[in-house]
C-alpha cells in the first residue's frame, strides 16, 4: 500500500489526515477518491511531495508501494 497525507484544510475535506491507497498512477489513485476531494487536491495552488520531496511536475507519476504522497495547500502566513 501507499499513503496519502492531507495538510491543512485538505485534511478536513478528506475526513482524515492520512489515507491508505493501492499503488498505481497518481491519476488512477485520484480517480478512486470522492470527486470533491480529487478536485481540491488537483488545485494548481496545492503542492505535492513524494517521500518528502516536492514534485515539479506531479501529473504523471507512478506511486509505488510504501510511498508517501503529501498534498500541501498554501500556507497560512502572517
Amino acid at each position, binding site marked *: 500500500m501507499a499513503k496519502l*497525507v492531507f*495538510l*491543512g*484544510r485538505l*485534511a*478536513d475535506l478528506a475526513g482524515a489526515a492520512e489515507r491508505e491507497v493501492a499503488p498505481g498512477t497518481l491519476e488512477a489513485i485520484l480517480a478512486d477518491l470522492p470527486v470533491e476531494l480529487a478536485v481540491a487536491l488537483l488545485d494548481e495552488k496545492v503542492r505535492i*511531495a513524494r*517521500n*518528502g520531496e*516536492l514534485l515539479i511536475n506531479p501529473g504523471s507519476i507512478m506511486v509505488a508501494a510504501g510511498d*508517501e504522497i*503529501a498534498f*500541501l*495547500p*498554501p*500556507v*497560512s*502566513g*502572517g
Partner: protein
Amino acid sequence: MLDVRLLAQPFNPGAFVGPFTNAHPGLGGVCTFVGEVRGGGGVEALELSHYEPLTLPGMQALAETASSRFGLMGMLMLHRVGKMYPGEPIVCVSAAAEHRRAAIDAVDFAMDHLKSDSWFWKRELRGGVWSWIEPRDQDHADLRRWG
C-alpha cells in the same frame, strides 16, 4: 551556531535566548523577535500543523540562508506546533552578529520567510468553531522586500 527546533509544548523564549547568547562570545549584538498568539477578535485557541519531512528541513535551510546572507555568528529559530492559547509564544528568532544592522535585518528577513514561506497551516478557534487561516496578500509583499 544554528539551533532550529519545532516545539510541541509552551516554551519560555528567555530560556533559549540566554544560552544562545552565551554560546557566542565576542558578539556585538543579538536581535530577537518573539511572536505571541493574539487573543483579539474572540480567538480562543490556535492550532498549527506541520509536515514533518518538509517543515523542519525548510526552517533549517532558511536559517542557513539568513546566516550566510547577513554574515551571522549564529541563529536560533524556534516555532511552536500543536494547539496553543492567547499569550503563548508561537515563534522566537534570534540572530547573533558582530554588528547590530546584520542582526536586526536577519531577524526581519527570517520572520518574513517563516511567516509566509514555511510549511505551517493554522486554524483558529472562535466561538467554538475552528477555521483555517488563508494566506494574506501582505505576506507576499513582505517577501518581495528581499528580492
